[in-house]
């Protein structure tokens, strides 16, 4: 019962949970349930990040996805869909083709992954969060600033678009 085992247990619980949650997002007949499944999914993925020693990302994941994005989704659903009917999240006409393509992509990805030998044994530095901060404000300062501008623009844009004229 070493650390690896805990990681393995946690991974499998999270992985199965995530796949189920993701499937629920796609499959649940009510859009609000899908959204809630998405919340669950986001939470689990945060857990996965913790497993991957990316606590900061995990926190950000929760703050942004659970705290902001999902809320936006829920708002959008609540503002646009007043119905509690059980078929608010239907599939469209091309769902079979979509399934085929998705399975094809999955097969392709899995085949590709299977053919490759992947490196093991990397180590996340202990002060990862600090390093992350240095990275963001050092080598990645430009993308960082651009992301900031992007967010500003997105914010202004979202307000302008959503405002009732």
């Amino acid at each position, binding site marked *: 019962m070493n650390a690896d085992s805990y990681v393995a247990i946690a991974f499998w619980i999270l992985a199965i949970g995530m796949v189920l949650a993701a499937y629920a997002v796609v499959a649940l007949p009510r859009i609000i349930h899908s959204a809630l499944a998405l919340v669950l999914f986001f939470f689990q993925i945060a857990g996965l990040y913790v497993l991957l020693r990316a606590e900061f990302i995990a926190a950000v994941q929760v703050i942004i996805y659970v705290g902001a994005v999902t809320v936006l989704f829920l708002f959008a659903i609540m503002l646009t869909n007043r119905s509690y009917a059980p078929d608010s999240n239907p599939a469209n006409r091309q769902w079979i*083709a*979509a399934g085929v*393509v998705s399975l*094809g*992509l999955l097969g*392709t990805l899995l085949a*590709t992954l299977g053919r490759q030998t992947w490196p093991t044994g990397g180590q996340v530095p202990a002060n990862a969060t600090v390093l992350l901060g240095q990275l963001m404000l050092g080598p990645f300062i430009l993308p960082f600033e651009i992301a900031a501008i992007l967010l500003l623009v997105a914010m202004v844009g979202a307000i302008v678009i959503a405002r009732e004229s």
Partner: protein
Amino acid sequence: MPSTLWLILLLPVVSLALITLLRPAPRWSGRLTILAIGGSFVFSVVAFFEMLTRQQAAVAAHQEVEPVVSMVPWFQLGKTSFEVGVLADPLAAIMLLVVTTVSLLVQVYSQGYMAGDPGYRRYFAFMSLFTFSMLGLVLAPNFLQMFIFWELVGVSSYLLIGFWYHKPEAAYAAKKAFITTRLGDLGFLVGILMLYAYTGTFDFHQLQAAVKVGALGGAVLSTAMVLVFMGAVGKSAQFPLHVWLPDAMEGPTPVSALIHAATMVAAGVYLVARAFPLFQAAPTALMVVAVVGGFTAFFAATMGLVMSDIKRVLAYSTVSQLGYMMLGLGVGALSAGMFHLFTHAFFKALLFLAAGSVIHGAMEQDLFKLGGLRRHMPWTALTFAIGGLSLAGVPPLAGFWSKDEVLTAVYHSGNGLLLALGLLTAFMTAFYITRAWLLAFAGEWRGAAAAPPLPPGYALTPRPSPTGYALTPGPTPTGRGVGGEGVPAAGSEAGHGGSHGGSPGAHAHESPAVMVVPLLILAVPSVVAGFLGLPGANWFGSFLHGEEESAAEGIVIASSVVLAGLGILLGYLTYGARAISAEGLTAAFRPIHALLVNKYGLDDLYGWLVNRLYVGISLALAWFDQRIVDGLVNLVAWLAAQVGRGVTRTATGQLPNYALAVFAGVVVIANVVAVVAGR
């Protein structure tokens, strides 16, 4: 000496530049031109005598005379250095003399002839340009410069023929002249390129040296020289490119005298003379020259027999005489050809200027409408007669000696057919010039003096020139002030008073002194120039060659004199004494007459070739361009549009469809890449 030559060359340019840039008063532009050309003339004389001294020194030393050369680099491209410069040898010196003399006299004459023309200044600018170009051609030390000035005299000729551009015929004739000569220049250019490709030089003397050392010769040289001769054919109006010259008479008469009789058309002859050492090394080419010359001489003379326009008669005569010169050169007699050029320049200029005087005085140039002018314009009649007799080859006038020398050379060459052609030509020449003189000066006035009709809105300005009515718009009679019609040229006022509206014939008058004096001056060399080349005492030939020519042949002299006499007699009998009915002759030879009047149908043939065939092909190509080439382009565009329209159906506007397609594509491509890459 080089500076003299440069001065000769550049003085007309100076006048051209001054006229163009300063735009002086019209009469000043005329005076400027005369001054410049006078300067050139003086320096030409200086150069001639200097050359004479050198030549005598060379003869004394038993050497070939060394030409005076002065070169400047022009530009360099690739491995070729293009150079321009001046070259003077006896040939050039004589030609300079001819050109400047005739030019000077014609300019003086023009002051009277062109007086009051709205394009007076332009006329003299063009004349300066022409003189410059001609002198440049004469002084050219290499084929490149020769070609350049060759083209420039061509364009001067174009500008001057089309001087009265508002006449459709003039504009047409100008274009025809330029394009026809350019056709010949094409051969000239290819010939030059061939020579250059084989020797790497354009220079006459280096080419001669190449021939001497055998670097150049055989079929290559022959081909090249025949091609070069094509240029001469075009410029000297030899068969089959002679068609432009008669039409070129649409230009002002002094232009015809200077350019299309005395100097420019002789450039072809000069070219052959200049390249003579090369021709000598290519006997085939020389043979071509002789045959073309001989045939042209005869051929043109036949057409001269039936022309009714006085200038056209002279034009065909020019073609014919140029054929003589070519014939002379072709049989290897450089000095004979050049000598004929020399004398011909004077008497033909004289003839043209006299004809101009006739036109100026009588405002008519149709021989069958003229008549009896000897009473009204005696000086003109006299000088015309002198020129005519010289042309006809009546001893001891200049034409006799030079033509005789040519015929002698032909005789020596042993080619009987060419000799026969030459003699026949002499007969016909005598006949048609007699006919022309008699019709114009003898008898009674036959024409009217009505002014030609005018397009509405334009007023006829009283001007002495009948061929170029001056047109100025009604509301603003002075236009932009180009040569106001009220400005009289020096000395041209005299005798204009009743120049129109009078009774038939009564209005004809002698030309002003400024025109008559050049006639008289030109009459002198027309008479005496031949003594420079007397058989046995051929100063001319020895100057050119540094050695004596072969002696005269009595039989040739005799037969030519007899034939000329017969020609004159026949002419007199027909048109003077009316002993033989001209109409009867015409009727008797109706098919031939018709053929001659129609110029052997060559003009029609060329017209058909250009206007029907070439334009037809061009129209077909234009259609091809529009429908096929562009059609293909548009077809591609149309196909693309159709494909687009077809593919548009897949644009359902449904994002999921698009996304599905994208990812399906991703899957397919990824797998294809994986399979292809084998990974």
